[in-house]
């Protein structure tokens, strides 16, 4: 008989029990119900629903705009985190607090406000319209709304990691003759990349599922500016419950595969060998 090594938090059975019950009630059972509902369809029926041209167009749009929004926030968010961590200036705390506002604001409010600003007759949209650019009611507008709602993710994941990198490391590299670009490439990027990827993945996943803010600015034209979550709502409004769950399941699978890939990528970065 080997003696059990007692963990830091006591009561393994109890904590695991709570974890499983909680996960089941909140995540697994609702998702499982969706799969069960979709399993009423034959494989061929399922395939027909999820490969309909309108669904594929929405799939490209949802994942494409979410990807671009996550990339934009990946760049701008890192910059924001950098400014907030590395500099002290008056009003820094206020700006820091503002970063989280997109989380607190009801997304519908954000959507309505953005739409009012960016329609071709809106406060900002009129200038874009003069230049022949349509922001609201185009994929551009969708990306804009997603950029707004997913802003906090990259900032909040990169910020603490950046704060933990001692400036001495950069200084030492500089003393050893590294140029600024080399310091960035060899010191900062490797340290920040895992956290950055987490932020990117969160922003991306959130963007794919976002409904409230996008619906007002999207225009909702089939084949052009119709996002997948709207298509699910449209199916439900037509009392087509199975069609809606089929699209839901498809979204879930695609998202899961993408998030899994990002996780694997992250692991490879963290353990280079």
């Amino acid at each position, binding site marked *: 008989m080997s003696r059990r090594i007692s963990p830091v938090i006591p009561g393994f059975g109890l904590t695991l029990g709570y974890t499983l019950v909680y996960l089941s009630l909140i995540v697994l059972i609702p998702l499982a119900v969706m799969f069960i509902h979709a399993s009423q369809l034959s494989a061929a029926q399922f395939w027909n629903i999820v490969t*309909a*041209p*309108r669904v594929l167009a929405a799939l490209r749009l949802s994942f494409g705009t979410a990807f671009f929004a996550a990339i934009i926030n990946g760049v701008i968010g890192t910059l924001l985190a950098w400014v907030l961590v590395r500099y002290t200036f008056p009003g820094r705390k206020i700006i820091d607090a503002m970063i989280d506002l997109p989380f607190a604001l009801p997304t519908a409010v954000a959507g309505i406000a953005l*739409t*009012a600003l960016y*329609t*071709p*007759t*809106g406060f900002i949209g009129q200038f874009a319209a003069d230049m022949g650019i349509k922001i609201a*009611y185009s994929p551009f507008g969708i990306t804009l709304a997603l950029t707004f709602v997913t802003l906090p993710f990259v900032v909040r994941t990169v910020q603490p990691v950046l704060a933990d990198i001692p400036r001495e490391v950069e200084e030492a590299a500089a003393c050893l003759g590294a140029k600024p670009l080399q310091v960035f490439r060899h010191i900062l990027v490797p340290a920040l990349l895992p956290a950055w990827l987490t932020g990117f993945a969160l922003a991306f996943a959130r963007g794919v599922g976002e409904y409230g803010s996008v*619906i007002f600015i999207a*225009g*909702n*034209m*089939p*084949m052009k500016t119709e996002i997948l979550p*709207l298509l699910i*709502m*449209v199916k*439900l*409004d*037509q*009392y*087509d419950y199975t*069609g809606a769950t089929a699209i839901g399941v498809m979204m879930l699978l695609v998202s899961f595969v993408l998030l899994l890939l990002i996780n694997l990528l992250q692991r490879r970065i963290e353990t280079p060998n």
Partner: protein
Amino acid sequence: MSIRRYALAALASAVFAGSAVAKDFTLLNVSYDPTRELYQDYNAEFISYWKKSHPGDTVKINQSHGGSGKQGRSVIDGSPADVVTLALAGDIDEIAKLGKTLPADWQTKLPDASTPYTSTIVFLVRKGNPKGIHDWADLIKDGVSVITPNPKTSGGARWNFLAAYGYGLKSNGGDEAKAKEYIGKLFKHVPVLDTGARGSTITFVNNGQGDVLLAWENEAFLALKEGGGADKFDIVVPSLSILAEPPVAVVEKNAEKHGTTEIATEYLKHLYSKEGQEIAAKNFYRPRDAEVAAKYEKQFPKLNLLTIDKDFGGWKSAQPKFFDDGGVFDQIYIPQ
């Protein structure tokens, strides 16, 4: 106001007051998008009407509004609605079919196919009608932008769609291919598809999009009435439109469970009374009652109206043909 009715009410309360036990009622009316104002007015009227014969009761009426399809689905999914007042019979049919909370023949329970008021589809244009829009044919002229909600999610948009399609048929001697061509061209002029009628009104009125809004007549009048809208918009009545018939029904199973069957039924029946009809007319719904209709004759322009039953074979055949997946509406957007 007729004295006789008050006398009757007084008599009725005298008879019932002794035996009746005071009750608390809460009714939930699940309705479609543009009826908010109508039912706010009507609920106040109904509560005072009910109290005349049931002085001890307290009555509270909650309203829920949204796209007709979404509202129908919420009732199927278990919303405790006592009555539904939706944009089209098809949505209540679905509740009967999928939710089984009311019988399939619900539409026979009240007069006029359970439709106490009607409406039609008109055009709302910018003041002075700068694009010269007078009829359906003008909507597909170059540079005209048309706002209508998505017929997949909005009951009003389905009436819009059928009115336009009806025009396409009539102007081409009943040629379906030509009608489809017209409707295809029309939707090329639509830049935004909101999910409900109120959303489209906001897009047109508040966000300044489009040259013409295809709207419920009541919604168009409301846009004129509110916030100085009469200085910004004009209503254009096309040569041909459709008689929009938004029906009402008691959700029988729910009402039974809540013990509200009697009051819920009375709530809908009272819509047909002179008072109910007056409130409908004041909120720009066309009343069924001939007397009230005559009184408000000037408000509602006369025009040729198609009907869903005569011209489209009822919702049971129109819904799959036009709006289900792969139907006429989908064919506009998806290359065949």
